[in-house]
């Protein structure tokens, strides 16, 4: 009896490698990835996606790290073209700098991280906000450091524009894939990162308009429209208020400060 049982056990085997791939493709489950041309100067990007949406973005040069980070057990993400609709939405998002309806999967992140990233997604292309601004806007003015760390772990950089958040001293600051990529992304949106750093180092935090008496973040589109002769450089929100300026309602500098 046991002899037969043992012979039957020998019929147990491992499934062919193609099985899991075929099943996941047929059911639309599992983790996949594709590539897309990044913004000018940034190069190709890896786009990790599943039925829940886009779960990761990384430069193609980081492929090994990307595959390792997103493997579950022996199953690494599989190369597969994005659904056509998502491909169109992705390309539109990269062109416009706005997420639009592209589904982004932040499900694995904490509520705090999700809140930080959703707020960051509201920053218009071509504009820079300090970490402290994000912290204030989500109602956690003391959480500047936590905001920085949440943005550093942004799983979908470029799409959720953590490159549009800089240091509280007004400089461009660091980036998970190196500061050069952050500067390239800002340049692709029409900003001059060197000029931003230079002004910040001179102590400029905000720009006021002598005609409207409103002050803005230096890259707010209202600030960019102020005529050279009416531009007032301001070193802090307190200085702006002392000089009789009120905060811009669009870029909301230091609302709670």
């Amino acid at each position, binding site marked *: *009896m046991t002899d037969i049982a043992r012979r039957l056990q020998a019929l147990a085997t491992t*499934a062919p490698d193609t099985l899991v791939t075929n099943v*996941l493709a047929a*059911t639309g*489950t599992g983790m996949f990835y594709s590539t897309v041309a990044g913004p000018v100067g940034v190069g190709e990007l890896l786009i990790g996606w599943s039925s829940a949406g886009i779960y990761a973005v990384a430069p193609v040069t980081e492929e090994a790290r990307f595959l390792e980070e997103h493997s579950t057990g022996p199953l690494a993400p599989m190369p597969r073209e994005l659904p056509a609709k998502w491909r169109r939405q992705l390309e539109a998002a990269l062109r416009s700098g706005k997420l639009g309806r592209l589904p982004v999967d932040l499900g694995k992140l904490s509520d705090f991280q999700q809140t930080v990233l959703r707020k960051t997604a509201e920053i218009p292309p071509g504009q820079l906000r300090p970490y402290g601004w994000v912290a204030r806007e989500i109602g956690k003015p003391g959480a500047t450091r936590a905001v920085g760390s949440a943005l550093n772990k942004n799983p979908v950089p470029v799409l959720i524009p953590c490159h549009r958040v800089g240091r509280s001293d007004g400089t461009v600051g660091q980036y998970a894939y190196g500061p050069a990529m952050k500067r390239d992304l800002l340049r692709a949106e029409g900003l001059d990162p060197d000029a931003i750093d230079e002004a910040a180092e001179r102590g400029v935090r905000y720009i006021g308009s002598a005609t409207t008496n409103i002050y803005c973040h230096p890259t707010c589109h209202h600030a960019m429209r102020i005529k050279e002769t009416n531009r007032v450089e301001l070193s802090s929100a307190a200085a702006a208020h002392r000089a009789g300026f009120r905060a811009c309602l669009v870029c909301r500098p230091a609302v709670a400060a």
Partner: protein
Amino acid sequence: MGKATELASRLAADVDAAFPELVLTHQDRLYSGVRSFVGAADAEDVTQEAFIRAHRALQTYTEDRIESLQVSPWLWTIALNLCRNWARTRSRRPQTVQLSFDQSGGAAAEDEVVNGVMLDGWKQRLARLSEAQRVAVVLRHVVGLSYREIATATDRPVGTTKTDVSRGLTALRRIISEEESP
């Protein structure tokens, strides 16, 4: 058991996110069992179809139903149905097709050799048991399910399942001794 319950909870939380884990966890055992019933040539197709049907079913279940699912027996209920359908379709096929399948050489023939024994030989032996015994023996000794899990999968009492396994093994022993005696 604990691990299986965790999988059910993860499936209940998000079917699509946990489904790859379900496939990875169960594919070897499901494939091994299915192969014992249908042979190497069709085992992958039938196993694949079982997983696809499982996914389709999960999408219609409530969270509570998935949470309380005994994943292994449940998968086997689906797979056994497919194996039964496969056998029915095969028996309706014309004999010539049957022959051309049996003579298919190359890779398929190589696949049939399991640890030096012909899988086909086991398929023939198992085919001589009653369906209940064949299913019980394979699920117990090839797949490694518990009697309770087999009973759930086949919707039969545990006691009957034990009897099926033991009578199935006795029958197989007789079949093998007949083969070995001249």
